[in-house]
């Protein structure tokens, strides 16, 4: 049991990294990774929202949609639940935990339309994980996102001063650097089979 949970966690952090391998959440990855502290703030906010979203959407799918044959409503219900949840969390944090709101607040509204959050909730259902496994997988995806953001923020601070050809300046160079970081994550491909199974 514990072993399978560790496998799920490590797989979603390293092997199936959401940003670098499955291309979910590319917009914040490219947009907010300029500064290390912004990258960390965004990453922590994403972990937080992913966990909350899974906590709420998994029971909705299993106990509300599936018994009533409403599986086709999944997309609409999930996106609305996530959007409402993010708003609610923002209001609660603002009122009761102002320090946390100050740290995460600016990133929360951006996350509503982040495809990584909707993606992780739908993937948990598609992979037919149970409740605990879903939570662990969301945690892993969030940690993977944070890891990719932090690593890439480091790479980008070097790119700012590089002497690139004129037409490659800015976004093209950033994308090519992302390709190289993504290559590096290929090294983890066999790690799960060899370490745990």
């Amino acid at each position: 049991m514990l072993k399978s949970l560790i496998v799920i966690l490590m797989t979603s952090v390293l092997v199936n990294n959401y940003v670098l391998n499955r291309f979910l959440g590319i917009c914040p990855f490219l947009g907010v990774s300029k500064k290390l502290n912004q990258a960390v703030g965004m990453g922590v906010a994403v972990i937080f929202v992913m966990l909350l979203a899974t906590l709420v959407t998994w029971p909705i799918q299993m106990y509300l949609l599936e018994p009533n044959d409403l599986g086709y409503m999944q997309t609409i219900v999930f996106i609305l639940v996530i959007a409402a949840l993010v708003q609610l969390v923002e209001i609660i944090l603002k009122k009761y935990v102002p320090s946390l709101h100050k740290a995460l607040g600016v990133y929360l509204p951006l996350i509503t339309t982040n495809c990584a959050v909707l993606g992780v909730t739908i993937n948990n259902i598609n992979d037919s994980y149970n409740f605990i496994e879903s939570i662990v997988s969301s945690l892993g995806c969030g940690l993977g996102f944070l890891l990719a953001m932090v690593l890439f923020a480091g790479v980008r601070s070097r790119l700012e001063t590089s002497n690139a050809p004129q037409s490659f300046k800015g976004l093209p160079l950033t994308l090519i650097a992302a390709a190289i970081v993504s290559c590096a994550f290929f090294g983890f491909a066999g790690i799960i089979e060899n370490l745990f199974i």
Partner: protein
Amino acid sequence: MKNESKLSILLKGLVKENPVLVLILGTCPTLAMSNNVISAVAMGLSATIVLLCSNVVISLLRKIIPDQVRIPSYIVIIAGFVTMVQMLLHAYLPDLYQMLGVYLALIVVNCIILGRAEMYASKNNVLNSALDGLGMGLGFLLALFVIATIREVFGNASFANLEIKFLADYKIAILTQAPGGFFVYGCMIALVNKITKGRAIKKKEFGCSGCPNVHICKKEVCEKETSQSLNIEKGAN
């Protein structure tokens, strides 16, 4: 807003304001679905249909939807059309449905669609919005098709699953993998930069100005980012 001809509204999405290569919207499906020409075309067509329908409906309802709840309303309208496309594909083309997988549902959060709803359909009449949606959708399809062709022909020596014999010994397999997506997309944007001499991109520095969330996000991060990037650009010049 100045008067544009109907044709220019349709055509600007294809080239001048191509959503993928110039406005840099919808990067996730572009990268994920461009390793194969068939999945790229299927993704492009599904997104075009959703974009066209949602632009028309949002334009029709633009005077009824209150300003404060417009983003959630747009999301519900878009999610409705995405669900319809999902059900149609599931029923008639189950293979494609399997191939697109989770990315089909993720059309809901595709920035192109929400972006056009916010930037265009909420301010213009129905016919113009429909043309804009069609043009932008076809621009998305075109960009996906070009990127997917490069990746599939050189990475897998095939085109739409038809084998190309003389390239079979020279496959660059990494192009069909994740890093190849980033690499080819980066090179395409650089090419567009080169052709337009940087005019197209400079107007829309990547980040918040092109982001559909600019109105809902707190703007603090955005404004800081844009002013920073402006300063960097000034320094570079």
